[in-house]
């Protein structure tokens, strides 16, 4: 039953993703990509959960590498997206205009 249930979640999430992403304007496509990079760092969750105390050493090394790479994505992805989105501004309010 488990595979069926997981696939069910997967299919719904794909449809939801299509709905959400198709509303993102092309202006924001680069932040969308870097932001979704950060979200794909979600493997961090799996990697953390895989690092159990009773692991074989080699599995622990693999898991640690997975944690490190995924963290680069999460931290780097969110930070750079924030940096970019900060730059998107509306026209400045002081309507006096430039001299």
């Amino acid at each position: 039953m488990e595979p069926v249930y997981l696939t069910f979640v997967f299919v719904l999430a794909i449809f939801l993703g299509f709905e959400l992403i198709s509303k993102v304007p092309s202006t924001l496509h680069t932040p969308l990509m870097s932001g979704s990079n950060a979200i794909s760092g979600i493997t961090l969750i799996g990697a953390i959960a895989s690092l159990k105390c009773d692991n074989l050493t080699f599995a622990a090394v693999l898991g640690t590498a997975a944690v490190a790479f995924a963290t680069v994505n999460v931290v780097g992805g969110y930070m750079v997206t924030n940096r970019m989105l900060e730059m998107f501004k509306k026209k400045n309010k002081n309507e006096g205009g430039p001299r």
Partner: protein
Amino acid sequence: MNPLFINFIYIISAALFIFGLKMLSSPATARRGNLLSSLGMLIAIIITLMNAGLDYKWIFLGILIGSGIGAFVAIRVEMTSMPEMVALFNGFGGISSLLLAWAEYHQNRELSVFIAIVAFLSAFIGGVTFSGSMVAFGKLSGKITQKAVVFKGQHIINAVILSTALAAAGIFCITPASGFGYVLFALILLVALGFGVTSTIPIGGADMPVVISLLNSYSGIAACAAGFVISNNILIVAGALVGASGIILTNIMCKAMNRSLANVLFSGFGSTTAVQAGDGPQGEVRPASAEDVYYILEAADSVAFVPGYGLAVAQAQHAVKELGDLLEANDTEVSYAIHPVAGRMPGHMNVLLAEANVPYDQLVEMDDINPRMDSVDVCVVIGANDVVNPAALDNESSPIYGMPIIETHRAKTVIVLKRSMNPGFAGIQNALFFAENARMYFGDAKASIQALVAEFKND
């Protein structure tokens, strides 16, 4: 902590990711959306750390290294280098899914057929994403040639690689616990890494927006597959969102070039057509000096800048904004018309102009500017070529025929900033340069614009 409770908390994280993406639908709310999404991630990480029996020394070692590198890159990267960075991060997402699947398999080899299949998918897609992204990174950062590298029998080699992988996967899924199964798994990893290289190397520089989008989608799908391996919903949901995002962007990019995905991936576009560069429209070019251009701009009521990859190369975004401000002070209506595939990744030009403080309400999409192009006094094309080539509309024999373009030739005057008369990526000459209403303003984009700024200031 109770695993059931942990899974409930994951639902909150998933909801925050979804809200975050929803708020990306407008530049006004996008930043808060990103913060919400990162909050979701933080909650998920903290609750995962509360699992029983975790080996924290390894976890914190990994997190420490990862956050150090991630933060360093995020702070230091130039906006012009965003495509490289996104390519690199796509690759990291892929390799972490590969490593996760490998670690799980190494720890416990008794896999059911279903788990074996998803473990294979996670490792294979992860591997392709990683090596493909490294090639894309190399191309975008100029470490390897941006040209399409095509070699004889490319498709045959790819087909052989792919069928090897599938055959190995088939046997692996039946006997994952045996020693032979482990050898096959290792073989699959190697094949995946090789396939990433051979499938990305034949794709040329200007097709990179498609490739990055596609790899973005792969990295999500790999995370999804990893979620199936460890039966974790949050990985599946988040991976599926990223996968869907990548697919949509890929589709938009392909449409904006009027080419199928297969054509982008397999044709080696730009390497074969370059041969006939001498053909095509010929005629008299009307060069203009900084002073000429200044008088044209000075008299204009509306000006639309059309940026392309050349703007990024010349780092001219700040100079353009300065010129835009001077024009506005002169009561000229200024806008920036942006083609979906301008630059090296989706939305590349928008980010550069935002960096230079251009307000986002002045950034206009192709479909918005084209209907009112006839009323635009002056179009200033900066480092763009194929995306303004009228051959896409009227020349059926042209390789870019059918591609939607920004129809600058319909403006009253077009000023084209260009280094030389060299053709663009598609290797074809541009009839726009010989048009009656076009003036060529030769030189480095940044220096040329600065010269115009100086003209305005002297006045």
